[in-house]
């Protein structure tokens, strides 16, 4: 019988060398293929969030500056550029919210505090309920029905 023992480093290279590789390639046809365009559009809607937040801050600032400043702020919304922006922002942010609602259940843990997580459909229905309630209250408020 052979006295030879197995060599544990038999496959070790004689000298350390970097592996010669070709550069990584980005995902095929990024960003036009498959689900990538909706992901990029989702990210781009951040611009609407940023601009709308700035408009809101401007409103708070105008409130602090007195009635005349507030009236000028409200009147400025009648400008065609603002109207176009608001239509685009409404469409963009509605789509943003709906995509977020679709993904939301997958981001929730198995348990919420002591409770077991509700079914995905319940979570999504709850989000839709809150969204449309806020939308209705906001519309009534801006339309003057709640003042």
């Amino acid at each position: 019988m052979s006295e030879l023992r197995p060599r544990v480093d038999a496959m070790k290279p004689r000298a350390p060398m970097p592996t010669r590789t070709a550069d990584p390639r980005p995902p095929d046809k990024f960003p036009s293929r498959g689900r990538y365009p909706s992901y990029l559009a989702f990210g781009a809607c951040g611009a609407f969030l940023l601009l709308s937040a700035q408009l809101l801050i401007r409103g708070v600032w105008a409130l602090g500056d007195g009635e005349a400043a507030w009236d000028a702020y409200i009147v400025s919304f009648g400008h065609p550029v603002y109207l176009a922006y608001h239509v685009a922002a409404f469409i963009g942010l509605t789509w943003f919210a709906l995509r977020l609602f679709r993904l939301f259940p997958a981001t929730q843990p198995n348990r919420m505090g002591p409770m077991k997580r509700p079914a995905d459909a319940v979570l999504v229905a709850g989000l839709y309920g809150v969204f449309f309630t806020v939308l209705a209250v906001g519309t009534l408020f801006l339309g003057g029905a709640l003042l």
Partner: protein
Amino acid sequence: MSEKLKKTFIVTRFDPDKDEVPKTQTYEIEVEPDWKILDALNHIKDTVDPTLSHRWSCRMAVCGSCGMTVNGEPKLTCKDPLSSYGDTIEISPLANFPIVRDLVVELEGFMEKFQEVKPWIMVAKERAVEEGTTRQSPEELADFKGFSMCINCMLCYSACPVVSNEPEFLGPAALALGHRYNQDTRDEGSHVRNAVFRDEGAIFSCSFANECSEVCPKNVNPSGAIQQAKLANVIDWATSFVVKRGEDVS
């Protein structure tokens, strides 16, 4: 016996000794209708071109070795039947990884990222044998079991647009694995892992493309794990000002 199908495979080839950049080679072969992509690649290697290199092992979507890009989508090639594809099938190595040869990619960077999240149970003090086993309820197990189903196939890294643009990003599988240990009731090292999570190139680099969860062959949902980790880390950071964190763990 079922009738054979004729399929055309456009396969990426790269020989580091000869090629500067990868190229493609076309193979027209007859396949059985119930074959998977991997069966066709093995057939090409066995009977047409023995120089073709690809990685595989278990042939039943368990080992995670045979991940490749098939018609632009990261796939386990042992999983999908050829009948679910058209007459022409493009096969290339996983995107976002350096190519070693043909369809084989470099794994070293991936393995290093795994170590970063400390994917093991950390405890402040080892339990004595006399104390018995650590108990865990089925509910506690269910909190992280899904995240522990990862087979390290790397499809999520290949699909992730953040990995493409931010190479230092720890990536979906590693972050999901770290979150899995943070959710484990036997673990006491979440504050250590959370420090890694809050660093650059970790959970807050994720922009929620959700591609990782879409392509995951085991429904691990890495994207969900990362979003959960984001919320847990915000809470952990906020409460760290008032609650003392755990002892040193190992």
